[in-house]
């Protein structure tokens, strides 16, 4: 006889979770982001990062890129649920490890300190499309584009050398080669 006092079944073993990137094409209308994000929160899916902007003004299309984690079954379900939303045109999903897809995030760093410390920071950033956006005697604002984990690493490294403020975007994605998502 039951030991559980729940009216529901007990949770079963969960499969292995992986990180996936969803790209969603939506009508750029009021509330559309709320619908997409509400679907994730309402069904208990996780959002690690989010990027959204209009990509086709004539057709009024926005492109939302969402990084999420889940078991293959959950990922499949997210895709099917997203596809069901009325303003959603198409949905593509990729594993983070997918070699055919480029993922990029951008970060702005404000570094304050003495010259040599700032120089150390700039050296660390060099490899990641470093752009210096603002410069004073005691500070720099720099921009880098890289993968999420790379930015994580850099910001950790810069902390002791005068990084006082960081602002980051969500990931955006694009397939390699001539092929487009369909």
């Amino acid at each position, binding site marked *: *006889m039951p030991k559980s006092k729940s009216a529901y079944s007990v949770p079963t073993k969960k499969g292995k979770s992986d990180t996936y990137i969803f790209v969603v094409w939506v009508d750029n209308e009021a509330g559309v982001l709320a619908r997409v994000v509400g679907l994730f929160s309402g069904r208990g899916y996780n959002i690690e990062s989010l990027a959204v902007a209009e990509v086709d003004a004539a057709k009024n299309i926005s492109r939302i890129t969402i990084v999420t984690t889940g078991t293959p079954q959950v990922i499949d379900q997210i895709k099917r649920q997203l596809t069901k939303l009325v303003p959603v045109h198409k949905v593509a999903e990729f594993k983070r490890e997918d070699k055919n897809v480029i993922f990029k995030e951008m970060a702005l760093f404000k570094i304050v300190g003495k010259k040599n410390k700032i120089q150390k920071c700039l050296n660390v950033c060099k490899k990641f499309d470093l752009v210096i956006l603002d410069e004073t005697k005691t500070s720099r604002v720099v921009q880098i584009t890289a993968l999420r984990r790379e930015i994580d690493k850099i910001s950790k490294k810069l902390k002791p050398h005068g990084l006082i403020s960081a602002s980051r975007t969500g990931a955006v994605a694009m397939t390699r080669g001539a092929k487009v998502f369909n």
Partner: protein
Amino acid sequence: MPKLYTGAEIVFKCLKDQSVEHIFGYPGGAVLPIYDELKNHTSIKHILVRHEQGAGHAAEGYARSSGKPGVVLVTSGPGATNVVTALTDAYMDSVPLVCISGQVPTHLIGTDAFQECDTTGITRPCTKHNWLVKDINDLSDIMHEAFKVATTGRPGPVLVDIPKDIQFAKTKYKKPKKEKKLNEKFNNKFSQKHIYQLIELIKKAKKPIIYSGGGVINSGPKASNELREFVELTGFPITSTLQGLGAYPGDDNQFLGMLGMHGTYEANNAMHDCDLLINIGARFDDRITGKIDEFSPNSKKVHIDIDPSSINKIIKVDLAIVGDVAKVISKINKTILKKKNGHSKSNKPNIAKWWEQIQKWRGKDSLNFVNSNDSIKPQHAVQRLYELTKDKDTYVTTEVGQHQMWAAQHYKFNKPNRWMTSGGLGTMGYGLPAAVGVQIAHPEKLVVDIAGEASVLMTMQEMSTAVQYNLPIKIFILNNQYMGMVRQWQELLHEKNYSESYSEALPDFLKMAEAYGCKGIKAENPSELDEKIQEMIDYKGPVIFDCHVDPNENCFPMIPSGKPHNQMILGPKDQEDNKIKGKGKALV
């Protein structure tokens, strides 16, 4: 220059073009322009409810019994929030509703104006889609789109929020676009290849079972006919979910009864032991599957569903056929018939052993109960109601709880659209307003709400609606003075600590009936039951029937939470064998 219409006029023009005949609603400040326009449209009848939740459930009953979308009209703020329960209920059970709500004028949106709320925000998770109309020029398109979204694919509720200034504003009217062909392609994403794969599985099956659900009902009467033909062609046993009852005749020999938590022993064991499971228009709900890990462990699973997001949501299947149930089964039947013409080989002999096993399970007679001469057993009451109403084309609604399960177990449905119950959301108070809606759609038919006294009190005010429109609904209350299902769980799982499940002060339902202006009937012992039920049926008007039943009766059989299908409790005796004390008499 084309004629200009106000927003309110456009709403009605759209309703007419969508062939709407009835709307269920309640007026208020923010929908007054639409109510003002009502008098100019005699083809549309407005049913005034007593609470917006009642409007929603009535529209659900209307939709489920007629196959047409139900239309609800409410005001802003509390009008909209009151209808949320019904919208959620409709969303869970895939009932097509179009809810039109008034909103404060556009310039006041966001200012916490009187009776303002973020209606589209609140209803976003409980509708298929919703719209806030900010521009009068969008109104006709949105209204037509709303009907399209509600009724196509997997049906469901939608909401159109119309600010008061938009109801006054004027513009041209746009007719709905015709795009029937496109829809069909959109819904049916399967190919003949899938059908052949299914036929292969059917050929090989030795222990098959068909598990059908509400999708068959939603697909229309044709789907039920196709399902019946399919079951006949294959000779397979069939079981049904709560929502699917009536799609296949309940008194047919191939029908094993309902499955799931309170399903029959034979249906659940067949689900567990089968080697081929064909799910037609059901969604592997947790009340059906029990413990997921041990759900039908040795079967190939086939899922036929119109909603791609139902596939692999809970149970991973071997073959998914995404499409309208009627279309899919008709294709299957045609393919089977074609093949049979070739070499008329049937696999019926293959499954003879399986039927023997099923007969053994049937021998347990799991719906049996010990009847009494002193008190009315609720199961007996439902059985008598069935026997006395089965020759009429009866429509049955229910509330939620023990009485609902007894109704599902003991009332046999032979036609689709005759059974309206809140399955997914489990909304107490659904049945009475739903009966109002059913009676509106079928004025000449017998409509019975099999109710519990706790549930029915939640929406009792709609009796007033029934009396106003002279709707002869019969509220058949199985009165056990408890929230029966809560009491049952407390008995079985919480050491009989009946915390707050007993109603110490219940109204006198006879006086209540009198106060509402309808007929009250009371039955207290089994000997008078038949006569009283007959009196209820014969009375030309609404009736509240107070049927006093044994308060200690439990609903069996039952799969306890977290258990697989083959570990059912059959009755109190079985319960004792399982080392849990039980009161009451042996069932088996």
